[in-house]
């Protein structure tokens, strides 16, 4: 697989274990971006010439591919900058409209800041109350507590499918069924799910799904909101400008239908086209065999880490996760990260945009190793060697 990725050709010694942060890009994605700029770099949705029409066609073809991949209609795919922006759009334009002061929005204690601060902003503006399911002693999601809060009456529920810190995959199918039963609309933060699992949106039964292009082997600058059309259609835009309007008068304007209503101004055309290519790549490579291979690789990572004396994991890692975060007694996480970097092993160090969760786990900063499509045995071996040396040297 690595031969498909120029990053590895150009950095042959690189041991990349930071997929959860951002994924490398296959040649096909880079080529798609490059082709747009080389051959048909026109603007979209306002073309009266061939170059523009070609750009328009490629742009909407990418939307079509994404829609097909997730089993939704094309007009249910909204392009945003990233997961964060998509989340804020739903918070402001959907939940913001239905919320009354004192209404509750249900989150979990394991959210990335993107799925926390966006709601804090909304709460500050509307007087909504945020409620959080607790994190248990092992750093795991507490489903019973979440259900209890759900039943107690909430207006909206937003949760990640997979924690970016512990790697735990939440029982989203059951959670969504419970929410549907109570008529509570839902949003799934799919940033860490979509790189590893193909999602059938209708079958899943969520109202909104958000994810980032750059974590699924696509370009940066592009993220996606998938939403049920009836709900998207109720939403008013929160960014105004060109492309998103139907009629404009000095006295007021009417808006386009979704998704264009939420795509004001010139979009990141090349990134959208690149994302279409990334979806093709995923479609080919996210197979059951790949799933099993990633589980084997994850087991390898965990075996390497478990051989280190004094290691503590955040959460409860297992081979079906795709990342593990940890601290090692007597070794500062920042030192460990720097040492691994010297040995060409790239991992994430810090609070991982989840300060409340790290606080709950009682650590200041942690190290995270995350795997993806290209992770192979040699990566695992080099991680094992480097981390053993690092600990000997740094203690």
């Amino acid at each position, binding site marked *: 697989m690595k031969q498909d990725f120029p990053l590895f050709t150009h950095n042959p010694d690189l041991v990349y274990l930071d997929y959860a942060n951002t994924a490398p890009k296959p040649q096909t994605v880079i080529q798609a971006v490059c082709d747009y700029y080389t051959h048909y770099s026109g603007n979209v949705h306002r073309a009266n010439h061939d170059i523009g029409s070609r750009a328009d066609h490629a742009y909407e073809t990418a939307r079509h591919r994404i829609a097909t991949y997730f089993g939704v209609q094309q007009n249910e795919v909204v392009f945003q900058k990233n997961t964060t922006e998509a989340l804020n759009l739903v918070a402001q334009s959907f939940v913001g409209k239905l919320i009354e002061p004192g209404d509750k929005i249900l989150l979990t204690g394991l959210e990335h800041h993107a799925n926390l601060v966006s709601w804090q902003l909304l709460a500050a503006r509307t007087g909504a109350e945020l409620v959080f399911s607790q994190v248990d002693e092992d750093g795991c999601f507490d489903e019973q507590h979440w259900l209890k809060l759900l039943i107690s009456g909430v207006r909206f529920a937003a949760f990640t499918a997979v924690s970016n810190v512990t790697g735990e995959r939440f029982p989203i199918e059951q959670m969504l069924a419970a929410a549907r039963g109570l008529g509570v609309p839902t949003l799934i933060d799919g940033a860490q799910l979509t790189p590893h699992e193909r999602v059938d949106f209708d079958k899943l039964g969520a109202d909104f799904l958000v994810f980032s292009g750059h974590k699924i082997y696509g370009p940066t600058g592009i993220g996606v909101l998938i939403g049920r059309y009836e709900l998207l259609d109720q939403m008013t835009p929160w960014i105004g400008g060109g492309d998103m309007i139907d009629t404009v008068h000095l006295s007021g304007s009417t808006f386009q239908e979704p998704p264009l209503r939420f795509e004001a101004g010139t979009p990141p055309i090349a990134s959208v086209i690149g994302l279409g290519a990334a979806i093709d790549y995923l479609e080919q490579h996210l197979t059951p065999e790949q799933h099993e291979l990633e589980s084997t690789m994850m087991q390898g990572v965990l075996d390497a880490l478990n051989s280190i004396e004094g290691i503590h994991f955040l959460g409860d890692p297992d081979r079906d996760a795709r990342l593990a975060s940890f601290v090692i007694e007597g070794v*500062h996480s*920042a*030192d460990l990260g*720097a040492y691994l*970097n*010297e040995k060409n092993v790239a991992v994430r*160090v810090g609070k991982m945009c989840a300060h409340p969760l790290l606080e709950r786990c009682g650590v200041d*900063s942690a190290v995270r190793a995350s795997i993806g499509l290209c992770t192979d045995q040699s990566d695992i071996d080099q991680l094992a060697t480097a981390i053993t040396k690092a600990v000997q*040297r*740094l203690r």
Partner: protein
Amino acid sequence: MSTIHERANSIAEELSFLDRDERFEWIIDTGKALAVEDSFTDEDLVKGCQSKVWLKVWQEADMLRLSGTSDALLVKGIVSLLLEIYNGSTTSDARAFDFIKWLNDNQISLSMQRMQGLEGMLRRIQSKA
């Protein structure tokens, strides 16, 4: 007493025998070797560092005095360099000395986050010089 430049040059000479990997190891050793005699409070913490850094800077008979440490070894190595270079220098020498350029000249590379932390330490030194 040596001047700030003499002290910096003598460390640079020691480093000149080391390759990139060895310099990295040298910083670790320097961090391990830093003897911390002082005790510190939260007031001594330098803001903006990923790891914790405590740094005290004061003047004694027109000379700069420093003591400090960190909970991370590599940062402790950098703190140790700061102490060795700035301790005992005149305030005008301390104001004029460009530590970041010195690090670059001696091929000690820091990550962006470390750089931000270092800038906090240097601001504290400059504010007392």
